[in-house]
Every structure is written in C-alpha cells, then in structure tokens.
C-alpha cells in the first residue's frame, strides 16, 4: 500500500522584523518543516514500520529551496518525494488553499495512495483547509484534527480521535481511502539520524511542473488576493516592570503579596 504525506516548508518570523510591501522582509524569515507535517510524517512512518510493503511518498508545493526541508522528511523514513513548482507558481502572489489542494489532488490522482496524511494547518498562513479540500477533490473520506490514530496497512477503516475544544475528544471510524489531518501531539516525531540523513541524499525528489500534472496556469488564478500585510498595533496596557531580574522579581513579589498569593 501507499501513504502520501503532504509536507510544507514554512517560514518563521523573527521577533523583530520589517514588512516589505505585501510580505515580511526575507531577512527576517527562517524556513523549516511545518510543525504539524512533522507529526504527519511520523504517523506515516509508524504505519510503515508496523506493516509490510508500505511505501511512504511525500509531496510538497514549493521552490527548490524546499528540498532541504524535504530531505528532513526523507531522513525520517519517507521513501521518495515529489516537489511541485514552476514559473507560474513562482509568479503567484497568493497561493490559497484551493490552489494547493488542486495541485495536490493532481499528484494524488497520479500516485493513487490508500491513505493521505497532512498537517492540520501550516504554521505560517494557518488556513487549515488544504487537507479537507484535497479529500473532497479526490473523493476520499476524511477526518480533521486527528490526535490519535488506530490503523494498520491494508485496513478498510481507520479509527481516529478528533480533538475538539474544551478537552473533549470525538471517537470516529473513517472508511479508507481517506485523508487525515494530523494534530500535534499525536506522536513523538523522531529526530533524523545521521544514517537517515546520509540515506536521504540518495533518495529521489522528483521535480514536477504544473504541466507535468496536467494542470495549466489557470489553477493559480483564485478569487482571493492579498492586499495588505502589516504588524498589528500593540494594544497592551500592561504595567511592565523595569530593572535587573532581581529588581523586577522584587516588584512582582510585592504584587503577589498584595494580591494575597503569598503571605509576608
């Protein structure tokens, strides 16, 4: 069987940064594997390790720079990877979840997986919509925000827990093939071993263009466009204690005494 894992390289913004037009200036960005996808990769690799003859394939939509991130997934046990990018995608100002889902759907049609795992959301744009959009497009069943998964290779059903708000979990059985969007905390993602990192160097990252997937540039033309990006105004009216750690700790201690948290 085959598991397709969607992975994204996401940007993290430093504490101090500047905005340049409709983006954060690149000097203040660092790139990494999306946190949620790290858990999805681990979930896929665990199913692979528990069963026989399971291939794990990762797919990402991103520029060549993302190869570094993809290598991390390969080092953790993904067998091979696909990276979709071309000039049309590079020239797109705002890749919304519908566009990503459309591209991933084309990859899924080619790969014909039995299970698709995605992170719940990406740490940068946080749309949280790609996995379920993908499922609907390829006719798979799905479950969103999965924080526990009981599934063995070849099963025709996955039992999942969905993490609802307020400390409540929903227990759901989902027919496969399915797309599951994976929540952080579902497992303990492994570190890439040195051996894994060495092996990853020889694994395939297949570059694909939209045309290779039977798509044309129209797929990037959505109705949603980014028109503003700015640092939100701070609305803090907190009393901030000033001074050395001993001085500020002293002021906070006074407050806690005043509040009756601690006597004396």
């Amino acid at each position, binding site marked *: 069987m085959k598991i397709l894992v969607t992975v994204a390289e996401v940007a993290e913004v430093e504490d101090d940064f500047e905005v340049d037009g409709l983006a954060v200036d690149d000097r203040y960005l660092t790139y990494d594997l999306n946190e949620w996808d790290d858990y999805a990769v681990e979930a896929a690799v665990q199913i692979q390790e528990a069963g026989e003859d399971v291939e794990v394939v990762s797919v990402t939509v991103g520029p060549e720079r993302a190869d570094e991130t993809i290598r991390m997934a390969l080092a953790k046990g993904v067998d091979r990877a696909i990276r979709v990018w071309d000039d049309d995608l590079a020239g797109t100002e705002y890749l919304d979840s519908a566009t990503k889902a459309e591209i991933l759907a084309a990859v899924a049609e080619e790969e014909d997986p039995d299970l698709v795992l995605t992170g719940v959301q990406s740490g940068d744009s946080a749309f949280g919509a790609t996995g379920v959009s993908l499922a609907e497009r390829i006719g798979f069943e799905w479950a969103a925000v999965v924080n526990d998964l009981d599934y063995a290779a070849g099963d025709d059903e996955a039992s999942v827990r969905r993490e609802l*708000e307020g400390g409540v979990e929903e227990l759901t059985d989902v027919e496969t093939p399915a797309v599951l969007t994976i929540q952080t905390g579902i497992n303990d993602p492994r570190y890439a071993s040195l051996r894994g990192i060495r092996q990853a160097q020889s694994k395939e990252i297949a570059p694909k263009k939209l045309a290779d997937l039977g798509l044309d540039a129209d797929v990037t033309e959505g109705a949603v466009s*980014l028109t503003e990006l700015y640092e939100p105004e701070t609305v803090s009216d907190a009393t901030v204690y000033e001074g050395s750690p001993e001085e500020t700790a002293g002021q906070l201690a006074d407050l806690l005494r005043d509040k009756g948290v601690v006597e004396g």
Partner: protein
Amino acid sequence: MTVLGIAEHRRGDLRDVSFELASVGRELADATDSELHLAVIGGEVEAFADDLDREGVDVIHTIDEGEEFNHDIYVQAVEALHDDLSPDVLLMPHSVNGLDYAPAVASRLSLPLVTDAIGVERDDGLAVTREMYGSKVETVVDVDADRVALTVRPGEWPPVEGTGDADVSAFAVDIDESQVRSTVTGFEEVGGGDVDITDADVLVSVGRGIEEEENLALVEALADTLGATLSSSRPIVDNGWLPKNRQVGQSGKVVTPDVYIAIGISGAVQHVAGMKGAETIVAINDDPSAPIYDLADYGIVDDLFDVVPALIEEFGGEPPEI
C-alpha cells in the same frame, strides 16, 4: 441578498460561536441590506432554533438530520441549503468541526474560502482580515467573487443578544447514505487525573520558552514556593513533559484563576482562549512584542531563566540547579 450562517452545537448545547457568527452575519448583511439566515443541523433543532432566535436574525432553517455533528451529513445539508438560498456569503465557525466540513463545502460549491477571519469589511467587495505567522502579522485579503465562504474565529465578535422574531422553517434534505462514510462512535473527556487546574486560585503556567524538559523543575519550584498549581500551554503537553490535564487553551481547559503567571508563553490565540478570564495576568517573556502582553496586566520582559530564580529567592525558596 442573503447571508447564511451555520450554527454549531455539541452534546445538546449550542456553542457560543453560533451567536458570534450571527453577529458577523448581521454586520455583513447590514452592509448590503441583506437578510441574515441561520441554519442548525441535527440534534434538538426546534429547541436550538428557539435559542438562535435573537435580534437581527431573519430566518432560521432547521435540518433534522442526525444527533451530533457528522461532516458527511453537514456537507450534504449545507450544499442543499446553499443551492436553495444562493447566499452571497456563507459563514461557518473556525472551530475543530468547522475545519472538518467548511473546506469540503467550499470545494464542492466552488466557492472561494477564507478561513479564520478576525475582521470583515464589505463595500463593493469583501475584505477579510486574518493573521499569519502565529499572530505576528495581520493581513487583509480581498475576495473578488459574487459568492464566498468564510470561517470565523471564535471569540472575535460579540454574540448576538436580545429576542428576535425570526421565521423558523424546516428544510428537508435527501441525505445520500452511501456518502456517509464516517461514524462518530462516542466522546471522551480527556485530562482527568489528580489535579483540576480549573479549581486553582493561582496558576503558574509554562510554555515553549522553557526550552527543555529538565528546566521544568524551575517553574515547579516557583509553583511550590507560591503554593500555586502548575499548568502549561500546548507544546509542553505535546512533548509529553506534562499530562493533558495541565493544558490551558482551546483544546485544553478554560481556567479563571485569581492570578495567572504565564512563563515563556507567547500567547497564541488558542492558548488565550483558555486563560483570558483570569482576574490578574502576569507575563514573563523576553519578547516584548509577544501577544501575551496584549492581555497581561503586569509583565517582565526578560529572560525567564534569570527572573524565575530571583522570584523564588524573593520568597525565601531555593531555585533548583538547571
């Protein structure tokens, strides 16, 4: 024109976001002199309709299918109602269940989807404010389409109140059972255990800034010194450093202590949802622009590894070696 909002309920109760969504809906409807319709799917739909009948709601559609949320039924029901009403804006909650059906609905209806809206402005078109990079920036996205689907962040709009005189109408949907491919088998409360952080008067809460599991000893020592209860934000629980019953936030516990001391917690929206009701909030974080300061009453912008030991010593305790 019509704005349609889909209410959310769980285990017999409408969730607050249903009334907040009605508030956004009214705002959008007023901008174009439209009607605000709400729909409620499954469960005690008549009783839910009574509760949803608040000021500014024009029509409530009841769809009596299923007891609890099932996304396969929701997708079919919303699709059918959307086909019938042709609303120009479809509003759904940006909740866990919203995430489980809204993208599928938008995809099926070929609607542009903008998620996690924290602001909306409607003039010629629709401009939606949302956040990126963990709340460090805000963005505005314009939607150039006659029809759109939006998910709305819980807690951003006041709930609609007052009593309304909405028309309540039952809407029948012919559910295709072959397309119901998931079954909810139950619910479980998680995070029981020996400590109930919702009972605590004083919480010392620790977040990602603590860096390593062994460093937790520092905040544990502070909690001991203050006679406080230890809680945490999500990453600490995800890492397995503290059990789930200690997690404060949207998916953890909602707490309302007298004093909440947030240590190394940035203040992501999911965390804030669980602790904003604290009477006094103190933040210790070395990033002055961390969102936690938007909420804090008192703050120390400094390295927690310097401040917390000093605070323990202030009360005669001895900070652990870390």
